């Protein structure tokens, strides 16, 4: 097929990778967006979810925020942000055109998996363990930092990992509203009926997504030592209710 030849040619032409509109720069921009948005969501979501989980309150909201997030199309939210007076399409530092709108939308979509998983993680710490901690005379803070948090860590990490992959996917969509990131190669290719370019962009975006997923999985394994045997069990216990694990593809 001719399209694949065009794709190969696009990918193997060094000029397409360099420069301001080159794929390397766009990739770097999208990675920066992804990491910033993930950090924003973690800073807001993690303390909130862990605190709620510790208190054992707000479960309804913590669980349902995922369902709400799933029903709202990322594209629609991005489009609303871009069209509104604020944040609009203004340039935002290294994040490029519509940078602030994209960052906000990405952070919002990273929140549900982080909040739901962290909340469930703390809640799922067995009651007898918690009671033993109380019996030992631990204060609330001690219980949280010495008992609940260490036991919850594998699930919290898997929530952040889910969010990472999801944010990368969502960041690609920013290009549909002429925003920053690698998605622009895809939309450019399509709008100018240069399908080879569009497919080349798709290949790069997909490959980076897979690499990110593998990296995150490795990192998760390193961060939670000794969980090699136990973490799949926890995962499957949770995924009995698919609504709490499945993320949005974006």
């Amino acid at each position, binding site marked *: 097929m001719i*399209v694949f030849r065009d794709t190969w040619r696009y990918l193997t032409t060094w000029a397409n990778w360099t420069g301001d509109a080159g794929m390397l720069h766009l990739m770097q921009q999208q990675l920066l967006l992804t990491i910033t948005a993930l950090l924003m969501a973690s800073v807001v979501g993690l303390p909130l979810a862990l605190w709620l989980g510790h208190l054992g309150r707000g479960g309804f909201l913590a669980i349902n925020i995922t369902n709400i997030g799933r029903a709202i*199309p990322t594209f*629609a939210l991005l489009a609303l942000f871009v069209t509104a007076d604020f944040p609009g399409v203004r340039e935002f530092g290294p994040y490029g055109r519509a940078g602030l709108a994209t960052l906000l939308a990405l952070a919002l979509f990273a929140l549900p998996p982080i909040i739901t998983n962290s909340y469930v993680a703390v809640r799922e710490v067995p009651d007898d363990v918690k009671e033993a901690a109380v019996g030992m005379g631990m204060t609330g803070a001690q219980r949280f930092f010495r008992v609940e948090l260490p036991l919850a860590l594998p699930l919290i990490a898997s929530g952040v990992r889910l969010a990472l992959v999801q944010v990368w*996917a969502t960041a690609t969509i920013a290009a549909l509203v002429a925003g920053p990131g690698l998605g622009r190669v*895809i939309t450019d290719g*399509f709008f100018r009926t240069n399908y080879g370019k*569009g497919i080349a962009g*798709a290949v790069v975006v997909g490959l980076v*997504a897979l690499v990110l997923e593998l990296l995150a999985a490795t990192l998760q394994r390193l961060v939670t030592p000794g969980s090699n045997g136990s973490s799949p069990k926890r995962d499957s216990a949770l995924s009995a209710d698919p609504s709490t694990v499945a993320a949005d593809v974006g």
Partner: protein
Amino acid sequence: MSADGPTCYSRLTNEWICKQYLEDFRPEIQHATIEHLEITALSVLLGLVIAFPLALLARRFVRLESLVVGVATGIYTIPSLALLPLMVPFTGLSKTTVVIALALYALTILVRSMLEGFRAVPDEVVESARGLGYGTGRLLVRIELPLALPVIMAGLRVATVSTVALTTIGSLVAYGGLGNLIKEGVTTNFRAELFTASVLCVVLAVALDVVIVLTQRLLTPWTRRGATA
């Protein structure tokens, strides 16, 4: 939020909520909504049809299970805006492209929930059914499927709601249902169009979710009795 003039959309007034828009563009909105529903329904159905035999196979052969789940996770990792272009060389700029891509995503959720559902069937129930002389086929249809249904339906809800949202991305190849209106709304800075289409997307997702929940209640009356008792 009524407009001060005869219309709330024009070069000067560009309101988010506009009744006049709904009246003037009714055919366009209807067409987009129907296309959206059509793409979502076809994708989820196609996903179901492929997921079911896959789940049965994966259940039968243990080594296949990790492969199926691995591939499913891999597909799920690929951003939708990247998956669509990858389909284009094979199916062109058509509705089929969108349906196949979305079906792949739905499939990954459905296979996992089916495996999860089958695993939730108690072993002793299966054994007593075998003892009563149930063959493999009858066991599946009469015993395992009904008992796995609540978990499978939970997966179906997730798959359907996310497919409704993802359909909007189809606007890349001009078949995005309400996504087409959203795209047009952004490029022409038409707030009423953009807002209406976005709200309709969420309404569609919630409506389909309710339909599935009601269907599940009809299909599994015993879970309802259990819940009220």
